[in-house]
């Protein structure tokens, strides 16, 4: 095999003093001292979340504070890692503003150790009751803590505007509808 001998160039005087390199490095350091910061003091400071961000899945209430989920279990069915588990139940008759909806979740659990934040549950929900919102950081000391139960999901979800008021329209129709 042929061998190529490479000539090593001798260092110049400036290079041998190392001074230009030290000055150049210090200039970079001083420039960053006065420049605008690009890091955040997390967790005291939080980043701005862009629209359409897929955070932790949550359950939302309508503007009147009523539960929107009717426990149709489509999210449970579509969930790829089987993180969602719903126990369906009947809405008690004494909830006068919701009794006509008939069905609501007795229990609603999302295992955040399983969730892959894919957003299929939000996409499939016929009642617009489940949303992946801004919350991105979940932590806990035990596995059980990492399962979000119904009350936690509603606490995280809060209230979102409603375009349809589907069940109110239904109730309205029942009162003034086409009965004869």
């Amino acid at each position, binding site marked *: 095999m042929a061998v190529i001998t490479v000539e090593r160039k001798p260092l110049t005087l400036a290079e041998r003093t190392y001074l230009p390199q030290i000055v150049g490095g210090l200039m970079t350091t001083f420039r960053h001292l006065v420049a605008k910061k690009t890091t955040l003091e997390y967790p005291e400071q939080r980043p701005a979340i862009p629209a359409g961000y897929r955070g932790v899945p949550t359950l939302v209430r309508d503007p009147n504070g009523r539960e929107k989920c009717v426990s149709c279990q489509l999210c449970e069915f579509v969930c790829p890692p089987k993180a969602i588990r719903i126990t369906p139940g009947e809405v008690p008759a004494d909830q006068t503003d919701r009794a006509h909806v008939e*069905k609501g979740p007795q229990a609603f659990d999302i295992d955040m150790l399983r969730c892959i934040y894919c957003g299929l549950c939000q996409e499939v929900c016929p009642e617009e009751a489940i949303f992946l919102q801004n919350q991105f950081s979940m932590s806990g000391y035990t596995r059980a803590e990492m399962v979000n139960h119904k009350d936690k999901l509603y606490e995280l979800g809060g209230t979102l505007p409603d375009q349809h008021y589907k069940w109110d329209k239904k109730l309205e129709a029942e009162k003034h*509808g*086409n009965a004869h």
Partner: protein
Amino acid sequence: MIAPPKPDLVTVNIDGKEIAVPKGTNVIEAARLVNVDVPHYCYHPKLSIVGNCRMCLIEMGMPAVDPATKAPIMDPATGKQKINWIPRPQIGCGTNVSPGLHVKTTSPMVKDAREGVMEFLLINHPLDCPICDQAGECKLQEQSTGYGRGYSRFVEQKNVKPKRTQLGPRVTLDDERCILCSRCIRFSKEIAKDDVLGFVDRGSYSTLTCFPGKQLANNYSLNTVDICPVGALTSTDFRFKMRVWFLKQTNSIDTETSVGANTVVWSREGQIYRITPRRNDDVNDTWMPDSGRELFKALKAPDRLTSAETVDALVARAAEVFKQGPVAVVGSGRSSVEEQFLTKKLAAALKATTALVSRVGQGDKLLVSADKNPNVRGALVTGLIAALPSQKLTDLAASIDAGKVKVVVSVGEDLAAAGLTAAQLAKVAIVYLGTHANATSAAAKVVLPTLSVFEKNGTFVNQQFRLQKFAQAVPGPQGATNDLIVLAKLAAAAGATVASDLGSVWKLLAAEIPNLAPITYANLPETGLLLDATPFAALPFVEGETLHFKPAVAGAAVAAKA
């Protein structure tokens, strides 16, 4: 083209395919034979035909003949006989086949007609699939994927009808979802013979309701839920419990009576949610009694027997008990054929007498027979018993009183209920195999917890001597063991070696019982197999007439006497 039809067959042409079908078949059934699906709501193969849903519209025509000479008119373009197509669609359910009938089920006119019918059916439908229990098995959902338009042109207000009506103890009605197919009305009138349902009001206000002062409370009411093509009639018990697409279906047998109605058990993750009938045209058609649908609730009952001890420890204790003296074995008409066979082996090993307890109740001439044991005939076929059992164990009681029996092995039978007094129970050592606690298990020296019919595989012989199999739907509870394993271990303790798995037991059965010779559990058809009943023809069975069953003369004579 197929071979020349037999005299009672009629050749028809469906979507270009020729098929010979029996005379009197309607177009829906004929199309099913060539794997063509004609969508329908009101038509049901076991009910009368009303033709009111209009979903099964098809295009039909007959070969053209010259009116004067009756000579076939040929089509010069194709060289075949010309077909005169009727210019309007016809209903498939109400059209019986006739020779040469031509049917189109996919023509543009048919598709148009179906889309029109779907649009009208959906006009007043509430579209509340997210809360409807029928979602997933709803014909309206299925057909609207094929023939729905995806959006509504209806801008007026939908009709408002009664919701959440309790029609009876087990059935809830949502009238807004009803498409007025009248299947439930026809079922109540024709099958259950309890005519309580009807339509009131006219036009789009037509509403399904119970007649005043009546209730849909008969023992077949839940069949109306099964045949309802939409979510109008729903089971109160299953209401909002689970979505059907999560449920696993397992074929099973109704163990209530000797009819042996074929069923499907719907379960998820070891929990049974509901039981529905499975079609078997020779046994139960597509029906089953309501009482049989609640049997699974006993699985989680607080009196379910389980044991912290291992089976081997329990069997060792039972083996000690066997040494106390002469043994009598009380088998069960609720055990499967395989278990009865192993019970016989156990009895032979213990040199014990065998008996069975008969349970006789009222039959309803439909799907509940007088014999409340599902498998008395299995005990006859396997040779566990030679004569029909009696309701009280008088012979056993006499033997106990005389001191001739010291140990009683009971396979799931409550001896106290079978006529033994507490004093007699106390005189003998009892080994009890069973699923639930009772007076006998309380008095028993050794209790071996076993599995219920939903937790194991096996076969029953029903009143027609039809061998039918059931499969395991859910796992058994911890601390309960398969009956076959328990019986085999007990027999081993008594000195006889028998297999405990179903396949090996069937090899033994086939070898020892000529009536069962060519059968294995695996090759037994889902609809069952009729066994040779002639050896038992003289026995006075207790059953009266039920659906698809007429008692033999001997049995009828007994029924007439009673």
